[in-house]
C-alpha cells in the first residue's frame, strides 16, 4: 500500500466520529474538525436502533401514516402500503445494528464511556384503530423470513406495557430493535479515536474545501489552512454547503425534528413504542422521550407550539400516565435528508480525495457503525465489506459522479419519490 494521505473529517456528529474512529483503527492519520453548531441531528436523536422499523416505515409511525395517507389505497380495496426502503439499505441497517453489542464493549474499553446500549423488549408498533390493521399486515407480510416479529393482541400489548392506553387494538413487536444514548455514542467514537491517535479540533468552522484541479488538498478554516490528502464531508444537514465550496452540488437538505423529554420517571416502558403521531421510549436515566416531527423549514432549529402540542397530545393518548408528568426540555435538530431517504456515501464529483458521509436522515445512529467502516474503506482503498454502490451520490444524476467500484454490478437503486409526503408533523 502506498503512503496513506492525511485525512480530514469535517463534522463531529455521530457519523463523523464513527468515520474518524474507523480511520484511526486503520492507523490512517486523521483530524476531526467540529464546529459544534446547534441543532445537529445527533443531539436531537432518540437513539432508537430500529433497522427494520425504519426500513419499513414502522419505526416512526408518523412516517408510516403519512405514506399510508398519500398512497390513496382503500378506494379499490387494494393496499399499497408505505414505501419501504430498498432491501440493500434494510440489510445495511440490520448489519450495522448487529455491531452494537460488540461495539459497546469495544468503546467502553477504549473510551471509558458507556453508550447505554439497552436491549429492552423491542419496538412495538401500536395499532390504534382497526382501520390501520390492513396496512400493518401488508407491511409485515413483505418482511423477509429472517425478521423476528410478532403480531400482538390488545391483551398481549397490555401485558408487555401495562401503562399503555386500553383503547389500542393491537400491535406488532419487533423484538430485535433496541436503543442507545446517541450523544454518548458519538462522544465514545470520538474519545476512542483520539485514544488510537486521531486528532481533534473542536469549535473550528471549516469555511471551504480547497482543491487543486481534480484533487482535494485540504480545508480552509477562516484564515487557517489545514492540508490533507482526503476530506470526508460528514457535515450532516450542512453537508451541501460544504460541498458547494468545492464546486459540487450535493442533494442533502435539513429535515427538522422536534422532540420532548420528560422528567425522570420510574420504570414506565419496557419497549420502544411507535404510534401514528409520535414515538416513545424511556431512556437509561428514566426520562421518556417523545419524538418527532418531520419538517422542511431550512436551518431553523426552534420549536413550534403546533409541533410540540401534537407530540404531547399523541403521547398522552397512548400513555395517559404522562399527562401529569413534568417536561424537562423540548428542542429540535436537523436531520440530513435526501430525496430517497438513503445516505450519500463515498467519492463524488470526480474529485480525487473527496468522500461523502452524510444523508443519514432518520437512521444515522443505527447506521453509524457500518457507515464508519464503509467510508474508511473507501478512503483507505480497501476492498469493501458490504454492498455500498447504492449509496453513491451519482444515483441522483451524472453531475454527482463518483468512482464506482470496477467490475461490480450496479444495483440501480431507484429513488423513492415519496419523500415529499413525509412532511408530516400533523
Amino acid at each position, binding site marked *: 500500500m502506498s503512503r496513506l494521505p492525511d485525512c480530514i473529517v469535517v463534522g463531529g456528529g455521530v457519523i463523523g466520529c464513527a468515520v474518524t474512529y474507523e480511520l484511526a483503527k486503520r492507523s490512517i492519520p486523521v483530524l476531526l474538525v467540529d464546529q459544534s453548531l446547534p441543532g445537529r441531528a445527533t443531539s436531537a436523536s432518540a437513539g432508537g436502533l430500529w433497522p427494520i422499523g425504519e426500513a419499513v416505515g414502522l419505526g416512526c409511525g408518523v412516517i408510516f401514516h403519512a405514506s399510508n395517507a398519500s398512497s390513496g389505497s382503500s378506494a379499490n380495496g387494494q393496499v399499497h402500503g408505505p414505501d419501504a426502503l430498498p432491501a440493500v439499505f434494510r440489510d445495511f441497517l440490520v448489519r450495522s445494528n448487529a455491531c452494537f453489542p460488540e461495539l459497546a464493549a469495544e468503546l467502553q474499553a477504549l473510551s471509558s464511556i458507556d453508550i447505554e446500549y439497552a436491549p429492552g423488549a423491542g419496538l412495538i408498533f401500536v395499532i390504534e384503530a382497526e382501520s390501520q390493521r390492513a396496512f400493518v399486515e401488508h407491511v409485515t407480510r413483505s418482511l423477509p423470513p429472517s425478521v423476528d416479529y410478532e403480531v400482538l393482541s390488545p391483551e398481549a400489548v397490555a401485558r408487555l406495557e401495562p401503562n399503555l392506553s386500553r383503547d389500542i387494538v393491537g400491535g406488532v413487536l419487533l423484538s430485535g430493535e433496541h436503543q442507545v444514548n446517541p*450523544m454518548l455514542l458519538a462522544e465514545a467514537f470520538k474519545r476512542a479515536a*483520539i485514544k488510537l491517535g486521531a486528532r481533534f479540533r473542536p*469549535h473550528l468552522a471549516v469555511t471551504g474545501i480547497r482543491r487543486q484541479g481534480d484533487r482535494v488538498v485540504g480545508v480552509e478554516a477562516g484564515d487557517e489552512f489545514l492540508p490533507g490528502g482526503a476530506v470526508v464531508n460528514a457535515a450532516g444537514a450542512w453537508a451541501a454547503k460544504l460541498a458547494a465550496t468545492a464546486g459540487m452540488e450535493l442533494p442533502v437538505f435539513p429535515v427538522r425534528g422536534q422532540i420532548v423529554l420528560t422528567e425522570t420517571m420510574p420504570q414506565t416502558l419496557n419497549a420502544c413504542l411507535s404510534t401514528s403521531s409520535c414515538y416513545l421510549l424511556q431512556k437509561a436515566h428514566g426520562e421518556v422521550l417523545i419524538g418527532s416531527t418531520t419538517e422542511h423549514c431550512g436551518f431553523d432549529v*426552534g420549536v413550534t407550539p403546533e409541533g410540540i402540542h401534537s407530540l404531547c397530545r399523541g403521547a398522552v393518548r397512548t400513555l395517559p400516565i404522562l*399527562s*401529569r408528568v413534568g417536561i*424537562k426540555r*423540548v428542542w429540535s435538530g436537523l436531520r440530513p435528508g435526501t430525496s430517497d431517504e438513503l445516505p450519500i456515501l463515498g467519492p463524488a464529483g470526480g474529485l480525487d480525495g473527496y468522500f461523502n458521509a452524510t444523508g443519514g436522515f432518520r437512521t444515522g445512529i443505527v447506521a453509524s457503525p457500518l457507515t464508519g467502516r464503509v467510508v474508511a474503506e473507501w478512503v483507505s482503498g480497501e476492498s469493501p465489506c458490504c454492498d455500498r454502490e447504492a449509496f453513491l451520490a451519482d444515483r441522483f444524476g451524472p453531475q454527482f459522479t463518483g468512482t464506482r467500484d470496477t467490475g461490480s454490478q450496479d444495483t440501480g437503486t431507484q429513488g423513492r419519490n415519496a419523500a415529499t409526503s413525509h412532511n408530516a408533523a400533523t
Partner: protein
Amino acid sequence: MIRHRLVIVGAGPAGMAAAIAAADAGLEPVLIDENPRIGGQIYRQPPATLISKETEPTNRAARRGAELLRRFQVQSSRMTVLTNTRVWTIFGHRQLGVQGNQGRETIEAEQLILAPGAYEYVPPFPGWTLPGVMTPGGAQQMVKTMGVCPGKRVLIAGTGPFLLVVAEQLQKAGMEVVGVVEAITTAEAIRAFPRLLEHPTLLGEGLGYLNRLRRARVPINRGEVVVEARGDAEVREVVVAKCDPQWRGDPSGQRTFVVDTLAIAYGFVPRAQLPQLAGCRMRFVNELGGWIPETDGNQQTSVPGVWVAGDGGGVAGALVAEDEGTLAGLAASHQLGALDSATFERAQRPVVRRLHRLRRFRAVLDQLSRIRPGLTTIPTPDTIVCRCEELTQAEVETGIDFGGTDLRTLKVMTRLGMGACQGCMCWPAAARWIAARSGKSIEEIGPLSVRPPLGPLSVGDLARQEGISDRTPAVSLGSSEGAPT
C-alpha cells in the same frame, strides 16, 4: 394566538417602570409575572395579613418602592396584569409560550420588554445541601411573604450589600444574627471608599445599615469565606476561613459558628434564559454577574423589538432597574408610534443622566464584589456540585479531564445541567472550573444552551388546546427560579 402591541415580562422594578412609562404614553401594556403578586423580589407586597412594620426596612429604597407601587396603581387600569403566569419559552423572537390560570396560550408581542431579574449565586461548598442552608433572598422571602423565621440563630455570608439588608430584616424579625461574613477584605473596601463618595446618598444608605447592625451588636467580618457547613439532619455549625484577595480560604485561619441557619450567596446571576431564547446576542461580564444580552443606549437587544431592563440585563440593583425599565418603556412606546421623537427625547434625557451617575457608582461596587476564582477551590472531591443529578466535584473534574472543556460536552459526559434547574445552579461554577482546568476563558466556554420549558410544565399542559384551563399541575422536581432553600 393572541397579539399584543407591548408585552413586558417580569413585574419587578424594571418591568413596573416600563409598564408605567408605556401607559403614560397611552399604550395598554400587558405585564406578565410568575408570582402571585407584583413588585419583584425587592418590592413584592406581603399578603395583607402579614404586613408588619418591624420587618419593613425604613430606608430610602423602600420609600422609592412604595412610590413606584403607587404610580403603578394609578396606571393599572390601563394595563393587563397577568400574575401567576409563566413564560415558559419564546418561539421565534417575540412569540411567548405562556402558561397560567387561563391555561396555555401563545402571545405574539409587537414589542417585547424582558425584565426577568436575577437569582442568587451559591457556589458549592461542603455541606451546602444540608437543610438550613439557604440563600439570603430565600430567608428574606420566608420572613416577608410567609411571616416565618427560618430558624433561631443565623449566619449570613457571601458578598454584597444585600447581605446587610437581609441581616437587618432577619434581626428585626426576631432571629439572632451571629454575624455577617463578607469575602471582600477590609483593605479592599477602604481602597474603594473614595470612589463610592461619587454617590453620597447611596453610600450613606449602606453606612446606615452598617451602623444599625453595629448598634444591634451584629459582628461584621470581612475577608472571610464559608468553607464548610456541618450537621447530620440539618446544619449545626458553619466553618469560616480567612481568605486572600482571590477568595481562597486559608486552612490555618478557621473558626466555627454554632447556628441552625446559614444564609449564603455571592451576589446575583442575571436570569438570561428569556433573552437567550429570544435569540439575543449575549456577552459575558463577570462584574455584572455573567452572561447578559448586548444592548444599545435604549436597552434594545440585538433583536429589533426586544428590550431588556433590570438585573436580567446585568445585575445593578433596583434603582438602576427602575431607570432602565423607564427607558425601555419610553423607547418601545416611541417605536410603536405612541410617542413622537421630541417627547421621547425630552422624557428620556433626565433618565439617561441619572442612570449614568448610578452606573458609575455601581461600577465600583461591581468591581469590588466580582466573583473571584478562589471560590472554585472550596469544594472537596465528594462535594455534590450538581444537585439535580447528584454529581460530585470529582465526577465533574473527571469529565473535564476527559475533554468536557465546553459546557455542551461536559453535559453529555456527566449529565451536569440536565436536571430540573437546567443548569442555572451549576453552570456558573462549572464554567469557572473548566476555565481553571483548561486555561480557557469563560467567554470561550460559552453560555449553557437554554432548552424550554422554563419552570414546571406537564406533558398534559402541552397536550391541551390553547386557552383550555383544565389544568393538572406538573409534578416537578424543582424550578428554575431562585436558589437552594
